[in-house]
C-alpha cells in the first residue's frame, strides 16, 4: 500500500512536529497509524490530503498537538541525564589533571547553552515541519543551527578569559568525589540507555590518563600514547559499526 507524496510528506512532518513537542511516543504512533489508514482509504476514493487536514497543515498539527499528551520524562530524565553526562566528560579532564578551579561563568553558562540549544533545535524542527519553506531557507536554518551551539560554547570559553567571575576551588578530597560521581553518571547512563558505549568511551579516554599520571615519562610521550589509544579505539569502533551494517544488509 502506497500513499501519495503529499500525504507521506504530511505524515512525516507531523511525526517530526510531535516528536519535537515531546509528545508520548506510543500515543503518537497510534494516531499516525490511524491517520495513515484514513489517508489511504481517502486517496483510493479520489480525495487529496487537503480534504483531510484542511487548508493549513500548521493549524491541523496544532489541533493534534493540543490533544496528545506530553511526555514529562523528556525534561525530567532525558535532559538532566544528557546534561550530567556532558558535564561528567568536561569535568573528568580537569579532575584527573588535578585542576580544581571552576569559574562560575563556565559552571552556569555551559548547562544554560545546552538547554538553549535543545530549545532552539526543537523550535527549528517544529517550524520546518509546520511551514512550507523553500529548500534554500531550510538548508540555511540547518546551517545556522549547526553553528549556533559551537559559537555559544566558544563564546563562553572566550568570555571566561576576559570576564572575571567568582572561582569555585574544591579540596583534593572533593576532587576525588567529583571523579567518583562522574564514574557513577557514566554507569547510570549506560544502564539507562542500555548501551555499554557510554562506559567504554570514558574508560578509553580517562583510564590511560590516570595510569600515565603515575608513570614518570615526559609529557610528549604521554600525549602520543593517549592519542594513539584514542585513534586505535575510534578505528575499531568504525570497523565494528561497518560490520554491523553489513550484517544488517
Amino acid at each position, binding site marked *: 500500500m502506497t500513499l501519495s507524496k503529499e500525504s507521506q510528506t504530511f505524515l512525516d512532518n507531523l511525526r517530526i512536529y510531535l516528536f519535537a513537542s515531546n509528545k508520548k511516543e506510543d500515543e503518537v504512533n497510534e494516531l499516525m497509524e490511524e491517520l495513515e*489508514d484514513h489517508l489511504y482509504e481517502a486517496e483510493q476514493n479520489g480525495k487529496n490530503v*487537503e480534504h483531510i487536514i484542511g487548508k493549513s497543515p500548521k493549524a491541523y498539527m496544532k489541533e493534534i498537538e493540543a490533544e496528545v499528551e506530553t511526555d514529562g520524562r523528556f525534561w525530567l530524565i532525558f535532559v538532566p541525564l544528557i546534561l550530567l553526562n556532558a558535564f561528567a566528560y568536561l569535568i573528568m579532564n580537569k579532575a584527573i589533571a588535578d585542576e580544581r578551579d571552576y569559574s562560575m561563568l563556565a559552571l552556569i553558562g555551559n548547562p544554560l547553552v545546552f538547554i538553549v540549544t535543545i530549545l532552539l533545535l526543537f523550535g527549528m524542527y517544529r517550524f520546518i515541519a509546520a511551514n512550507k519553506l523553500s529548500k534554500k531557507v531550510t538548508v540555511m536554518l540547518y546551517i545556522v543551527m549547526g553553528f549556533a551551539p559551537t559559537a555559544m560554547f566558544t563564546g563562553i570559553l572566550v568570555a571566561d578569559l576576559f570576564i572575571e567571575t567568582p572561582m569555585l576551588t574544591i579540596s583534593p578530597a572533593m576532587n576525588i568525589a567529583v571523579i567518583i560521581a562522574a564514574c557513577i553518571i557514566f554507569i547510570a547512563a549506560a544502564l539507562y540507555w542500555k548501551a555499554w558505549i557510554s562506559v567504554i568511551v570514558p574508560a578509553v579516554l580517562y583510564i590511560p590518563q590516570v595510569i600515565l599520571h603515575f608513570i614518570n615519562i615526559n609529557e610528549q610521550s604521554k600525549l602520543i600514547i593517549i592519542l594513539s589509544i584514542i585513534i586505535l579505539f575510534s578505528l575499531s569502533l568504525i570497523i565494528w559499526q561497518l560490520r554491523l551494517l553489513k550484517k544488517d544488509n
Partner: protein
Amino acid sequence: MSSSQLLKGILEGCLLAIIAERETYGYEMVEKLASYGFTMVSEGSIYPLLLRMKKEGLVTTTSKTLPSGGPKRKYYKLTAEGHAELEDFKGRWAVISTSVDNILKGD
C-alpha cells in the same frame, strides 16, 4: 467562543450518535457524516476529538487486523458514560435548535 469551537461541540455529539449505532472506525464515521450532509469540517479534525473523547472515557478502542492485511484498524465503541453524554447532548441540542429556529422564524 469561535465558530469552529461551536462546530466541534456539535461534531462531538454527532460522533457519539454515530458510534452509538455500532462499533466503527474513523473513515466510516466521516462517510456517515458526509452522507448526512455534515461536511463543514475537514475529515482529519475528527481524530483530535476522538482522542479527547477516549481520554474522557466516552469511548473505548480496539485495534483489529484487517482480513486483507495491512495496518491495524482502530474501532471505537461507546462506554456507559458515552451513552449518558449522548443523551445529554440530545437534550442540549433540542433546546438550542428550537430556540434558534424560533428566533430565525421571528416568533
